[in-house]
């Protein structure tokens, strides 16, 4: 391989890895943006979404060979999984977070950790701990251009995360509901005074966030497989990405995700530091970014007015 080709292969790898982080980070940021708390269970909802999608897909597809039907059944499975997770997300919010809305900031975090334990171990109990394959609904053989390989799946991940980013930005920025979400995130009492039903807003936020998680979960599981801790490690990374991008900021989540993917790839590939230190490099760079830009890359630095 020529070194130029190697470079571009790394670039491709980094971008697509970043796409995966971005996919999860979007949902994280969305919920954080409204409720200002780290929904630790987001990754686990994503895992449930992957499993539900897998079951639905296997069921719908049956023995059909790759073709239009597999693709359609994959989409149907995705819709099913998204709906399932939306309901699950709303349910979790009602039971575990809603009673804590006025409590200390860390109380819902702990509750979320509890939910995360319940979901991941519940999944292990019901579905076993071994990895299960979610089959590609299309032919995923790599496409090689000028010596650089990329798979259709990678392209899909990038497209979907980008599309989600655009859709979410428009939704939150432009729609009535989106405005209600922003107001709710700033001051729930006052939002109510404006005639906003914050319960509905929060439920909806969870529903959307969880549905996004389900879609993300299925796309990720195509590559990473389904297993009960699917959401944990990737979820954590994605959360880091969301924060670095400026938590609560939708484009920031996307940017943070891509950046994390690139940093993880290039930190090692180009700087020539031993691969083992990949996470160290990634975190050092992220900490440096935060030090230079304490509110995240796209976060707003607004000095408090006294």
């Amino acid at each position, binding site marked *: 391989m020529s070194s130029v080709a190697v470079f571009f292969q790394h670039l491709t790898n980094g971008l697509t890895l970043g796409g995966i982080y971005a996919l999860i980070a979007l949902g994280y940021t969305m919920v954080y943006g409204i409720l200002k708390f780290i929904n630790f269970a987001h990754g686990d909802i994503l895992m449930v979404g992957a499993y539900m999608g897998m079951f639905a897909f296997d069921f719908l597809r049956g023995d059909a060979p790759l073709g239009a039907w597999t693709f359609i059944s994959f989409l149907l499975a995705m819709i099913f999984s998204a709906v399932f997770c939306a309901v699950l997300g709303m349910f979790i919010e009602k039971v575990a977070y809603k009673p804590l809305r006025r*409590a200390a900031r860390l109380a819902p*975090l702990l509750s979320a950790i*509890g939910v995360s334990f*319940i979901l991941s*171990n519940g999944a292990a109990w019901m579905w076993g701990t071994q990895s299960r394959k979610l089959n590609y609904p299309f032919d995923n053989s790599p496409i090689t251009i000028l010596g650089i390989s990329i798979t259709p799946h990678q392209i899909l991940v990038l497209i979907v995360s980008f599309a989600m980013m655009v859709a979410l930005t428009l939704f939150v920025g432009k729609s009535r509901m989106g405005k209600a979400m922003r107001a709710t995130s700033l001051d729930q009492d006052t939002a109510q005074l404006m005639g906003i039903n914050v319960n509905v807003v929060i439920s909806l936020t969870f529903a959307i966030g969880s549905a996004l998680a389900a879609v993300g979960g299925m796309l990720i599981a195509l590559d990473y497989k389904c297993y009960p801790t699917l959401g944990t490690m990737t979820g954590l990374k994605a959360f880091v990405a969301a*924060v670095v991008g400026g938590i609560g900021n939708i484009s920031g989540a996307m940017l943070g995700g891509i950046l994390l993917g690139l940093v993880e790839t290039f930190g090692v590939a180009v700087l020539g530091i031993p691969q083992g230190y990949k996470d160290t490099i990634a975190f050092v760079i992220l900490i440096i970014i935060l030090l230079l830009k304490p509110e995240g890359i796209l976060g707003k630095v607004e000095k408090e007015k006294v």
Partner: protein
Amino acid sequence: MSFFQIILIYTCIYALMAIGQNLITGYGGMLSLCQAGFFALGSYATAILTTTYGWNFWLTLPVAVLISAICGFAIGMPTLRLKGDYLAIATLGFGEIVRNVINNWDSLTKGPMGIQKIPQAAILGFKFNPYKKTAFLIMLVVVLAICYFLFRRLARSRMGRALAAVREDEIAAASMGINTTKYKVSAFILGASVAGIAGSFQAVYILSVTPGTYTFMVSIMVLCMVVLGGMGNFLACILGAFIIQFISYFPQLTGLTNVIPAQAKQIIFGLILVVMMIWRPQGIMGREKFDYSGEKRKKGAKDATRN
């Protein structure tokens, strides 16, 4: 009840970390997620010095504290500008960096293989044999008691009050002449130091160290202990540590392990966390209200507090 003793031993070790976390988070209001990192530093300092360099355990203890303190300073100083969850991520990153470096610096830490055959702690030839627990437990209780009193004292002095002020309103605190940076960094240093102590004792309890013990989950558990017990309350931290340890070893203590599936234990653990938080969001004991004059403080009307 020798199995109960092991719960107490882990309670003590984790309570040490929780005390540190409480100073940082409960008092200073900084959400730090790197107790596991300092815990690891303490453990490895002891493990390396006792095995590779043949030091006595008690001599490694101050080194462990010093290293943790220096790292606490190194992480505290620059990241203090960060607020809330940004600080959480930076500190989480630090914890992961520590583990990552330990896992990769093979020549010093033996990498993923870990370090074995750590000698037992001893005083004048009397060995604190971890398998015999009682003596070990007594040693830990003494250490915990000392740290508890030192920290509680600190917290109800000017320093604790200044930290609380910084937590409540940094701008107002600065306008009252408080050097906010100084107090935040001090909290980090002290919090890191006790976690280092906890690490040292962990090393002489398990008698071997591997990077896998010092994961992010440890930091999360420590945070849970503090929040569950009650932020800003050192006794509550110890209680929180006990409760969390008790819940996680409950099936073993009662012999339920063979009756219920392994995951059920974790699911119950999760349920308890959720229920406890809904039941008492401010923690079981809540924030400790000091009473300066001998008269009792009126119970606050709404105790659930935001910070």
